[in-house]
Every structure is written in structure tokens, then in C-alpha cells.
């Protein structure tokens, strides 16, 4: 496939847009995620603070403080537990019955000794917390089965003289709605938990929940951990004045939800931008390259000879100017071409005229030369035949010279005719089996030589020859003339050897006829192919000097080349090419 701007440009733009979109999405996602996390990290401690503050509201401690100051309790303690037992117990029972959640109420002295008690719940000594001087104090959360209890202690009586501790154990009331309410309070997706700073139990006010890992309780900044098969982000804060801690917890996926939302919202938009961009690039490149393609097509058409090509000029930009310039150029090319063609036609016509004149001249000269020659020859013969008796030997010899020379002139005229005929004859090209042709001619030449009782041996070797393309009759004459020459000029040699062969040369075949005969002086090699040019005397080798001129003319008319190499007495090689050769 050829390289095309029309294809490359949209691909390039699309890839670029895609890269920008991916980068934008990645960076955007990262930023939003970071921002979301930062926001969560601000919200989580805030939520813990809100809950911790909430838990410090002293409502729950008011009653127990009031009980601790109840005169019956104070009196009972002041008496050292000896008197006022019933009124004190009554005051305690009043509180127990009043508060549905109160599981137990105890009165102890400062040493921890149990003085009075209502309710069934037994409080382990370990839970006991010493209250502050004037206020109640929360103890740790206590778990029993699935119920959570909470101890509040307050100092009762007169501390200096006779005092004690009032300890209330209340059941923590779970409400399924509470966690949701707390979540709502904290701002949607944050769960709030409360528990003992030292570990279990923990609650979200809906139920007892597993304690968060110790790491979050000790960390001063929000951290991440896995709980219940889910990644959470959480922050913890102590509830001042209590042994509790508050943890605000948020599922990680909710922390980064805005980032996901960003991705889900932005990805289709980015995809849309990429698609629209690609389409625009495709359309734009088409708009840009179509005129270029038009120009290219027109240029190719002009290159292949169709000069009447034009391109649309409608546009007003650089491409429009290109189209106009191109059309101007194409017009000029067409005009010069037509002018040139007309000139060539004119010259060709003139040349053909001259050529025809020349041909007809040489044709009629050849013809008109024959008639007088025939008369000279004829009458000389008649003189010899009819008046022989009256002629002395010298006269007879002179007539013999006339006879010989007229014969020779007849041969010259015949050859000249054959040569001139070549110029007018059309060429009918077809495949020519060179090997078969050479063998036939070699056979003919051999039989002629045998008839002439040739002296010395003669070997004619025909190599395998590629098939050529040309006019069979004319190619035959080329091989025949060269072969006859080779045989003629190697006459008298003892081991005369003539070879007809070929060799490839730069994609075409060079045929050659080689002999080991008389050869020629290479200084005169350019004269070999001239009409009537001879390098040997008629006594040495017969001939009119037209054979090679005919060879040259035939090869040239086939568009080929002919040349010769040789040295005196070292043989000659004649080469020729027929460019129309078949593969």
C-alpha cells in the first residue's frame, strides 16, 4: 500500500487526541481521588469530634449526681451505714424504677465496700471508677452477651467526714435507627463507633460491633485498614473525661467515589471528543488531500500522454492556487506538445518525401542501368558468337574483359537493388527460432561449399540460441550474409571453424558469428558496413561489398546494433542485437 497523507493525518490526530484524553483522564482521576481523600481526612476527625462532644453532654450524669446529694443517702453515709438504710434504699429504688435502663445501683464506701444495692446486675470491682470530687464519671463499657452496659459513678455524702460512691449501671439502649442518624449527622457516608479505648466492646449504637484495630486508636491521623472484607478509612479521637474513644469510619470505595464518578462522567465525554476529533481530522484531511489527489491524478495522466487533463479550481486558498497554476502549466505543456507534434509531423512528412524521392531515384537508376548493360553484354556476346572467325585473339580477349565486367556490374546493380529495397520494405515482426534458422543456413552454406570443392576442412558450430523477435526473412538474410562471409573469409584455412553463438549482455542477447579466417585491420572496422566498401581485393575474395551494408541496415531497422572485432589473419567476430527479442 502506498503511503498516504489522507490516511496518516487522521490516524495521527486520533492518536494524539487519544493520548491527550487518556492523560487528562488519568491526571483528573488522580487529582479528584487525592482531593476526595483529603476531604475525607478532614471530615473523619471532624466527625469524631462532633460525636465526642455529643457524648460529653452531661445529661446522663445529672441524675446520679442528684442521687449522690440526696439527703437520705448523705445521712446514711454520715451514720456510717448504721442508720437511714431504708430511706437511702428507697431513694435508690426511686431512681432505679424511674429509669427503665438502669440495671443496677450500688452504694459503696470509699474503700469499695458495698453498702446498698438495688437491681440484679452485679458489677465487677474492676469496673469501678473513682469519681471526681464534684462530678460523676463514666466508666468503661461493659458487655454481657449481646447487651452493653455503662457504669457511672458519682461521689456521695460528705467526703471529709463520711462519704461514699454511688454507682449506676445503665443498659445502653440500641436503636437500629441510631447508626443511620449518626451517619446523617456526620455527613452521609461516615459510620461512627464508640468503644473502650482499651479494646472491646465497641458499638455503633445499633449493635455491638467488632473493635477497630488498635492502629487507628493510636494514630493521630486518619489511616486505612481492612475490616469486614472491606477497606476502610478511619480517624479516632478520645472522648475527654471518659475511657472511651470515638472512631469515624468510611469505606475506601466511598472515599474515592467522586474520582470514580469523575471517570464515569468524563470517559464518555473524552471518547466523544476523540471520535469527533477523528472524524473532523478525516474530513479535513480529505478536504486537504482530495485536491492534491486530483492534481496527482492529472499529473500522472499527463505523464502517460493524456495532455487534456485539468483539475477543479473552485477553492480560494493555497490548494486553489495550486490547481490554477497546475492548469496553466498543463495548458502550456499541451500547447508545446501540440506544437512539437506538428513540427515532428511536418519534418517527418518532409523527410518521408525526401526518402521516397531518394528510394525511387535509386530504384529507377538501378533499373535503367540494367537495360544498357544488357545491351553491352548481349552485343559483346553476339560479336564473340557470330563473328568469332574475324576476330584475332587480342580482340577476343578484350571482348572477354567486356563480358566479365558487365557481369560484375550486373551483380553490383542487383545487390544495390536488394539494398535499396530494404529501405522500403515493411517489417513483420514475430518470434524467430535463431538456432533452427542458423542450422538451415549452415546446411545450405555447407552444400554450396561442397559443390565448389572447397579446399581444407570446414566446421560450422551452432550454439544454443535464444529465440529472437523480428522479421524472419530479414533476420535470415543477416545470418546468411554473416555466415557466408565467415565461410568465405576462412576459405583456404586448414582448420576453418565458424561459430554462431550468443551471450547475454545487460538484459539483452548479443548474437555473434565468429570465424578464424582472414580477419581485418581494426583501423578500418568502421568501413566494414559501408555500401561497396571492401577491405580485400576481388582477386582475394569475391563480392560486391553490399552484404554487410545490408546486415547493418536490417539490424538497424530492427532497432539493434551491429559491430565487429578482428585482427588481420586472426579471424573476425560480428556481433548484432535484436532488441525485440522474446524472453
Amino acid at each position: 500500500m502506498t503511503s498516504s497523507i489522507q490516511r496518516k493525518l487522521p490516524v495521527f490526530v486520533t492518536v494524539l487526541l487519544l493520548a491527550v484524553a487518556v492523560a487528562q483522564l488519568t491526571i483528573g482521576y488522580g487529582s479528584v481521588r487525592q482531593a476526595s481523600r483529603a476531604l475525607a481526612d478532614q471530615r473523619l476527625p471532624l466527625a469524631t469530634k462532633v460525636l465526642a462532644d455529643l457524648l460529653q453532654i452531661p445529661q446522663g450524669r445529672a441524675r446520679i449526681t442528684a442521687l449522690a446529694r440526696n439527703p437520705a443517702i448523705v445521712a446514711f453515709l454520715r451514720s456510717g451505714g448504721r442508720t437511714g438504710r431504708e430511706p437511702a434504699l428507697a431513694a435508690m429504688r426511686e431512681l432505679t424504677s424511674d429509669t427503665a435502663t438502669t440495671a443496677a445501683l450500688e452504694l459503696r464506701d470509699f474503700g469499695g465496700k458495698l453498702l446498698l444495692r438495688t437491681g440484679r446486675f452485679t458489677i465487677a470491682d474492676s469496673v469501678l471508677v473513682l469519681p471526681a470530687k464534684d462530678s460523676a464519671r463514666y466508666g468503661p463499657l461493659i458487655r454481657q452477651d449481646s447487651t452493653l452496659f455503662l457504669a457511672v459513678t458519682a461521689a456521695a455524702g460528705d467526703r471529709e467526714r463520711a462519704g461514699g460512691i454511688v454507682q449506676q449501671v445503665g443498659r445502653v439502649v440500641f436503636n437500629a435507627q441510631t447508626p443511620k442518624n449518626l451517619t446523617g449527622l456526620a455527613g452521609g457516608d461516615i459510620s461512627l463507633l464508640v468503644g473502650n479505648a482499651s479494646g472491646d466492646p465497641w458499638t455503633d449504637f445499633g449493635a455491638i460491633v467488632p473493635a477497630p484495630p488498635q492502629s487507628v486508636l493510636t494514630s493521630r491521623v486518619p489511616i486505612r485498614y481492612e475490616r469486614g472484607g472491606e477497606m476502610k478509612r478511619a480517624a479516632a479521637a478520645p472522648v475527654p473525661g471518659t475511657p472511651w474513644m470515638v472512631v469515624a469510619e468510611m469505606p475506601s470505595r466511598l472515599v474515592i467515589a467522586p474520582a470514580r464518578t469523575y471517570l464515569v462522567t468524563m470517559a464518555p465525554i473524552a471518547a466523544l471528543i476523540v471520535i469527533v476529533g477523528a472524524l473532523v481530522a478525516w474530513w479535513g484531511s480529505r478536504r486537504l488531500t482530495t485536491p492534491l489527489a486530483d492534481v496527482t491524478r492529472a499529473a500522472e495522466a499527463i505523464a502517460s500522454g493524456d495532455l487534456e487533463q485539468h483539475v477543479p479550481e473552485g477553492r480560494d486558498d493555497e490548494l486553489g492556487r495550486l490547481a490554477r497554476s497546475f492548469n496553466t502549466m498543463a495548458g502550456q505543456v499541451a500547447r508545446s506538445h501540440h506544437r512539437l507534434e506538428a513540427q515532428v509531423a511536418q519534418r517527418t512528412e518532409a523527410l518521408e518525401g525526401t526518402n521516397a524521392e531518394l528510394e525511387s531515384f535509386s530504384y529507377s537508376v538501378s533499373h535503367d542501368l540494367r537495360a544498357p548493360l544488357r545491351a553491352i553484354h548481349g552485343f559483346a556476346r553476339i560479336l564473340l558468337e557470330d563473328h568469332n572467325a574475324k576476330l584475332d585473339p587480342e580482340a577476343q580477349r578484350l571482348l572477354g574483359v567486356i563480358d566479365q565486367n558487365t557481369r560484375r556490374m550486373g551483380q553490383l546493380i542487383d545487390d544495390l537493388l536488394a539494398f535499396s529495397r530494404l529501405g522500403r520494405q515493411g517489417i513483420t515482426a514475430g518470434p524467430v527460432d535463431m538456432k533452427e534458422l542458423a542450422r538451415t543456413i549452415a546446411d545450405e552454406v555447407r552444400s554450396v561449399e561442397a559443390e565448389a570443392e572447397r579446399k581444407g576442412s570446414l566446421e560450422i558450430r551452432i550454439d544454443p540460441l535464444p529465440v529472437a523477435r523480428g522479421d524472419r526473412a530479414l533476420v535470415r538474410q543477416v545470418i546468411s550474409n554473416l555466415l557466408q562471409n565467415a565461410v568465405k573469409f576462412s576459405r583456404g584455412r586448414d582448420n576453418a571453424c565458424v561459430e554462431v553463438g550468443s551471450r547475454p549482455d545487460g538484459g539483452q542477447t548479443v548474437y555473434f558469428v565468429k570465424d578464424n579466417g582472414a580477419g581485418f585491420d581494426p583501423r578500418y572496422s568502421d568501413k566494414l558496413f559501408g555500401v561497396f566498401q571492401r577491405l580485400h581485393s576481388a582477386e582475394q575474395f569475391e563480392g560486391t561489398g553490399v552484404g554487410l551494408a545490408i546486415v547493418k541496415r536490417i539490424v538497424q531497422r530492427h532497432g539493434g546494433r551491429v559491430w565487429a572485432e578482428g585482427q588481420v589473419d586472426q579471424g573476425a567476430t560480428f556481433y548484432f542485437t535484436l532488441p525485440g527479442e522474446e524472453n
Partner: protein
Amino acid sequence: MDRNGVEILLVEDNPTDAELTLRALKQRNLANQVLVCRDGAEAVEFFENSASPIPKVVLLDLKLPKVDGLEVLRRLKGQARTKSVPVVILTSSGEEPDIHKAYELGANSYIVKPVDFEAFARAVSDVGLYWVLLNHPPQ
């Protein structure tokens, strides 16, 4: 010349060629009843005259003054009275177009005059011998 007994009509403008032809025919004793026309017009006149005898063979040159050989041939073969007369073209031209044209017009034979006198004499006498003595024209 006895016009009634014409066996060979020789149409030849070159007197030496005519003489050589006659000599060759004479050697075979065929020259007694030969009529020579010096140009094409003379030959056409002879054929178009209904009183002229019908020769056994016409030896026709192509390059002739006034009316050329091919035209003579066309007229000769064009009229019923003379169209079956054998015509032998005896010319210097061995050119393909001439040969084609001649046969197209109905020539019976085409001979290129050799320059060599012996060959020329042999050709002429062979032609005369064949057409005058051996050939049987329609009666």
C-alpha cells in the same frame, strides 16, 4: 510482316532489348511470326482493332512510353476477344508490387530480364518455345 500470322506479340520500347529478344527467338526458329510494338499505345491499338489476329503469346514490358505495361495488360484482359491470350511480363523490375499487380490483372507469367545475355537468351527462347509450341490455347 504478315499480320495474319502473328504468333508472338512483343511489346518493347528499347530497340536493343527488342533486337536481343528477336535474336534469342530466332535461334529457336520462333522469330518468323513476331510483331513488335514500340509503345503501349501501339499495343492497345492492335488489340482493340477487331481485324487484328490473336497472337499465341504476348511478351509485355512494363515500363513503356505513352501507355504503361500494366495498363495494356488491364485493357487486354478486360475485353472478351483477347482476355484468354497468355501474357508473359518480361521486364527489368523484380519489385513485389509490380509482380502482384501484374498477376492481379491476369498475367500468366512474370520474368525478370537477366543482365547476363546467355541467361536472357535462354529465358526468352524457353518462354517462346513453351507458349508457341507446347501450350494449347482455347480454340
